[in-house]
């Protein structure tokens, strides 16, 4: 066996198996970490998933892991973090020029929890600036390419995390999901991506976009790997008053329980106009697969779905305009040179530091909250949010899980929708209602298009019922066997 084969076999293993092999001392964390670094050196010049690779820090952590008794279920396993998640001492930019050079004083709670579970932080992945986008093209630094077709987008905004995991550069990663930013890139890159219930995971130390919608969650190659990562980061955090205090169940215990008798709803409104026929067909096939495995599948209705996008963009941008007010060039981040007065420091630092999409969303949000428009736009959107949440409540009286596509389209060509914000916003139409309702959702690979592009199925559940969502996803994963389909980068 040559070194190359050894590297490949190390990287082909799942996160769960890798953790088990490190714990059993069949392989060392240093060996695994070096394999990841070699893979990054080999292909990330083409994929460009990472904004920053902390080789020195990762190897130091790996050596420490090898020298210690197992610290937790992720002992010695390299992971990556979306670059809006703080890492103490390691530059964190949220993909924005305004935060170039920003070095956090603390780890985010999720970072600290991954480390406490034994994980090795390998580096920071690319994203749309401040997580605002659906293609990762709004990054202030670089374009990330879809490993399954380098001329295509990996999706976004957690496109770097999805592409890094899909191309075998790392075993798992964290992303954030405000309107679909974990599930949509997972769908486009043939990986599993889970957005937990709002409140399940702490956001302390995660750079805020829209606080009533943001959630952090895992991207991984298998459902079990995603469950392990979720386990490590879940639970009440004294540093985040919005984290929920309810007990965290085991996410792996019932994973292979199957779907016999599980009631699955197929919302007719989620077969949207303009959806790629192959995607719609793949979802109907996924429904048949689950039915054959014992689930009871029925059509359901979420009647206010077509209003979700409008409500989402008013609420998300309103919150963003407020959250991003902190970038004023005074305490951290970019400051414009030679500003004559304080007002100029604000106006010019922000103008120079923010990219076009972030400016567009700050403008829309500021407008929606401004005197004279607040009730007609922002409060109206919050009322519609109530209707969308009620739709889900009614449907979850009848079914246990809702099944749909995560994205209405397969990966599209880089640049294709960049000048048309509305067309880009439509790419989130199947994921963003979940954020408005605060529910858990997962995207799991379900098909390969005729052009060789991945298609993901989205499964949604009741609040705090990630266990059922994961179990249904695992059942689909087992039947579809797509986790061994790797890109040829």
């Amino acid at each position: 066996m040559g070194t190359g084969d050894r590297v490949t076999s190390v990287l082909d293993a799942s996160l769960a198996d890798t953790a088990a092999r490190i714990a059993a001392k069949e392989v060392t964390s240093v060996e695994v970490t070096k394999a990841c670094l070699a893979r990054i050196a080999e292909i990330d010049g083409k994929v460009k998933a990472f904004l920053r690779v902390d080789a020195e820090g990762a190897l130091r952590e790996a050596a420490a892991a090898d020298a210690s008794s197992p610290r937790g279920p992720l002992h010695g396993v390299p992971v990556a973090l979306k670059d809006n998640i703080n890492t103490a001492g390691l530059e964190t930019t949220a993909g924005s020029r305004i935060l170039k050079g920003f070095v956090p004083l603390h780890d985010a709670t999720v970072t600290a929890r991954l480390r406490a579970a034994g994980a090795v932080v390998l580096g920071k992945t690319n994203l749309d600036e401040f997580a605002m986008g659906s293609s990762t093209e709004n990054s202030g630094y670089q374009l990330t390419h879809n490993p399954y077709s380098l001329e295509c987008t990996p999706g976004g905004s957690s496109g770097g995390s999805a592409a890094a995991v899909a191309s075998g550069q790392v075993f798992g990663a964290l992303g954030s999901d405000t309107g679909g930013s974990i599930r949509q890139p997972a769908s486009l890159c043939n990986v599993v991506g889970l957005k937990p219930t709002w409140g399940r995971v702490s956001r302390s130390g995660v750079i805020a976009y829209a606080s009533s919608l943001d959630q952090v969650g895992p991207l991984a190659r298998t459902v079990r790997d995603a469950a392990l990562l979720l386990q490590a980061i879940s639970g009440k955090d004294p540093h985040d008053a919005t984290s929920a205090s309810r007990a965290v169940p085991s996410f792996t215990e019932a994973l292979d329980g199957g779907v016999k008798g599980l009631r699955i709803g197929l919302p007719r409104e989620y077969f949207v106009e303009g959806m790629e026929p192959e995607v719609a067909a793949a979802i109907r096939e996924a429904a048949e697969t689950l039915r054959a495995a014992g689930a009871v599948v029925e059509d359901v209705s979420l009647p206010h779905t077509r209003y979700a996008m409008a409500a989402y963009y008013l609420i998300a941008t309103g919150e963003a305009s407020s959250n991003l007010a902190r970038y004023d060039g005074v305490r951290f981040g970019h400051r414009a040179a030679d500003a004559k007065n304080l007002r100029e420091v604000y106006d010019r630092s922000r103008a120079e530091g923010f990219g076009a999409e972030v400016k567009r969303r700050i403008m829309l949000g500021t407008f929606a909250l401004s005197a004279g428009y607040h009730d007609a736009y922002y409060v109206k959107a919050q009322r519609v949010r109530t209707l969308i949440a009620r739709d889900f409540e009614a449907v979850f009286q009848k079914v246990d899980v809702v099944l749909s596509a995560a994205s209405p389209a397969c990966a599209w060509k880089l640049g294709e929708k960049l000048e048309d914000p509305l067309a880009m916003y439509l790419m989130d139409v199947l994921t963003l209602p979940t954020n408005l309702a605060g529910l858990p959702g997962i995207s799991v690979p379900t098909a390969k298009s005729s052009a060789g592009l991945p298609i993901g199925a989205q499964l949604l559940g009741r609040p705090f019922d990630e266990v059922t969502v994961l179990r249904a996803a695992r059942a689909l994963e087992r039947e579809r066997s797509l986790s061994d389909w790797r890109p040829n980068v």
Partner: protein
Amino acid sequence: MKLDLAQVRHVAKLARLSLTPEEESKLVTQLSVVLDAVDTLAALDTQDVPPTTFAVTEGGGAVRVDEARDELSVESVLKNAPEKSGDSFTIPQVLDGNG
């Protein structure tokens, strides 16, 4: 609804963003397109529907006890400052003249 140039300039002022003329005119078009799309909400009768801030209330609205903690030193707080002097952030002069 459509936004005109004056409205875009007003919102930019509220948002503390200095925009170029090109950015202004692009935003007039793009924000108008987006606002036209969100105007679909007007068709919904929501008079008797309460607004939702947090859909899952378990995490929302909680407050912790307001107590002082020793978490950050002055030195660390100033670490990422673009300009500082001694124990302070520095900014350009705010008041004119001899005040």
